[in-house]
């Protein structure tokens, strides 16, 4: 993961992020190293507070890291001028209801980046780009004259996607695109994102807690917990043979595995009794209080992120030994 290759888009090196003031510091990320390669979509999975959104926002310059280095196309991200940065990277917000001005028409919303960011003076050219973006987001051209308030949640989401891709960025961070949508339409939004990433030549970073959508869009997945990457690898490889017990739980959330599975109930019981202990563990594996396999070695030594099999990394001394 540390090797710089030529098609590296984003490189995050030993990044930590702290929030709060002296005396009351919250650690959102602890010494995270990860890279995103061109045309290889990455998904960040984790529960609330695991640091996935913070990491996503740091990689597109919306948040500044407290420690460490972030390179975007080989250049330190903090050295970019804002205008140049937004031509290369875009961020799609989680809440479509809050991210779209209800009083503006779709045309006004989508035209703004073209006028001010790309400075396209020719209105014919702008119209061409507008049409291209709106059609590939799955809506038809008549939507350009609708107001933000006339759109449904799914349509707002599509406009947000179109607005991000219209500047032809190289790298797009998508924060929880499916939380507001029911799961029949979830696949359609994910498919739109994937297709637009392909046709506009952008690499996606998907932030989600819903592991079911990951294989539909991302080639690589990183699982985060309490500000650390606990597992990283090829999506199918990670989902089929998860090494970390927490990933094993996430991968077990599908109908076939849930059916009458006693082990899941036991795991959840154990989680309820010990969940407060995983925050603030100073030594040993931070997951040990919840882990069914933890022994004294796990409680005393912190497992580093190690390569358990080729290109499949995990912070666990007993990779793959626990499964549902």
């Amino acid at each position, binding site marked *: 993961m540390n090797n710089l290759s030529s098609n590296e888009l984003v490189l995050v090196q030993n990044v930590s992020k702290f929030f709060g003031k002296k005396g009351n510091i919250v650690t959102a990320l602890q010494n995270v190293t990860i890279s995103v390669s061109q045309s290889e979509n990455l998904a960040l999975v984790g*529960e*609330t507070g695991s640091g996935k959104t913070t990491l996503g926002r740091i990689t597109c310059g919306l948040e500044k890291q407290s420690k460490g280095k972030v390179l975007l196309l080989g250049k330190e991200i903090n050295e970019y001028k804002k205008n140049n940065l937004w031509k290369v990277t875009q961020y799609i917000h989680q809440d479509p209801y809050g991210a779209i001005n209800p009083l503006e028409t779709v045309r006004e919303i989508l035209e703004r980046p073209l006028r001010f960011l790309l400075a396209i003076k020719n209105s014919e050219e702008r119209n061409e780009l507008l049409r291209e973006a709106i059609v590939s987001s799955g809506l038809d051209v008549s939507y350009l004259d609708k107001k933000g308030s006339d759109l449904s949640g799914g349509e707002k989401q599509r406009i947000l996607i179109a607005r991000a891709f219209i500047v032809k960025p190289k790298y797009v961070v998508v924060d929880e695109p499916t939380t507001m949508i029911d*799961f029949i339409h979830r696949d359609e939004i994910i498919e739109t994102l994937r297709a637009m990433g392909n046709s506009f030549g952008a690499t996606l970073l998907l932030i989600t807690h819903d592991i079911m959508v990951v*294989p539909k869009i991302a080639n690589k997945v990183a699982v985060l917990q309490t500000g650390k990457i606990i597992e990283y690898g090829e999506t199918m490889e990670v989902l089929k043979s998860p090494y970390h017990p927490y990933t094993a739980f996430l991968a077990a959330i599908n*109908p*076939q595995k849930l059916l*009458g599975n006693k082990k899941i109930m036991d795991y959840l019981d154990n989680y309820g009794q010990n*969940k407060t202990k995983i925050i603030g563990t100073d030594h040993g594996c931070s997951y040990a209080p919840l882990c069914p396999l933890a022994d004294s070695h796990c409680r005393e030594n912190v497992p580093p992120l190690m390569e358990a099999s080729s290109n499949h990394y995990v912070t666990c001394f007993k990779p793959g030994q626990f499964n549902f």
Partner: protein
Amino acid sequence: MTGNENVLEVRNLSVFYSSYGAQKKAVNSISFNLKRGEILGIVGESGAGKSTIGKAIMGIIDPPSYATGEIMFGGKNIIGMNNYRLNKIRWNKITMIFQASMNSLNPVQSIRSNFISILRDKMGIYDKSESEKRIDETLANVNLPTGVKDYFPHEMSGGMKQRILISLAMITYPEIVIADEPTTALDVITEYYVLSILKRTLKASGSSMIYITHDLPSVVFTADRMIVMKDGIIVEQGSTEDIVEAPKDEYTRKLVSTLNEVKN
């Protein structure tokens, strides 16, 4: 455990919503039974009519919208019942866990006073030690420390609030609990943790539950039997195992297959 006796019988239920003179049939002549001690899942996409069924059972479909058919509970039809009679059933024999956990608790009311108002108004329990005892007992059932009684909603996490809502619904020892998307705002592990608690509490108390959601895996985890709805009608109903392993209907097959892609 699941008995053979029906606690609730729904026959030819239709619900019509009207707004600005236009009428829409949200639920179209559906029938099903709920057995004692059973967890029945209702799955479907937005607009399938699943939440409407919950509302009809609670008797909270307000005019000009109306329901027709029969919802038989304790030998009486809930549809057409007046408010005085409904209030004897509502939040006493039939309770509900609402969708928006974050907004369902009054921000200026402590958790204790939420419980006490239910115990007084619905159960007629005014005795302080008796009500404290009952509150402690229900809180213990959802794995919360008794200290949370003095908390206000903003002092608690989403998962805790959700468990408070479950215990508010369970404190009257209801015969039926209706849970409408009780875990939408929670992340995966908290969601399944809350569901495991809900399931355990129900099985211990012998109450039945109607679990309404669009999330199929969570129904498979929670429910004994399930109903799949689309556009106001039931497309398939049966035991959870049967539906997951051998879905008969086209739409159900689509639902199950989208979720099993990982496996293959």
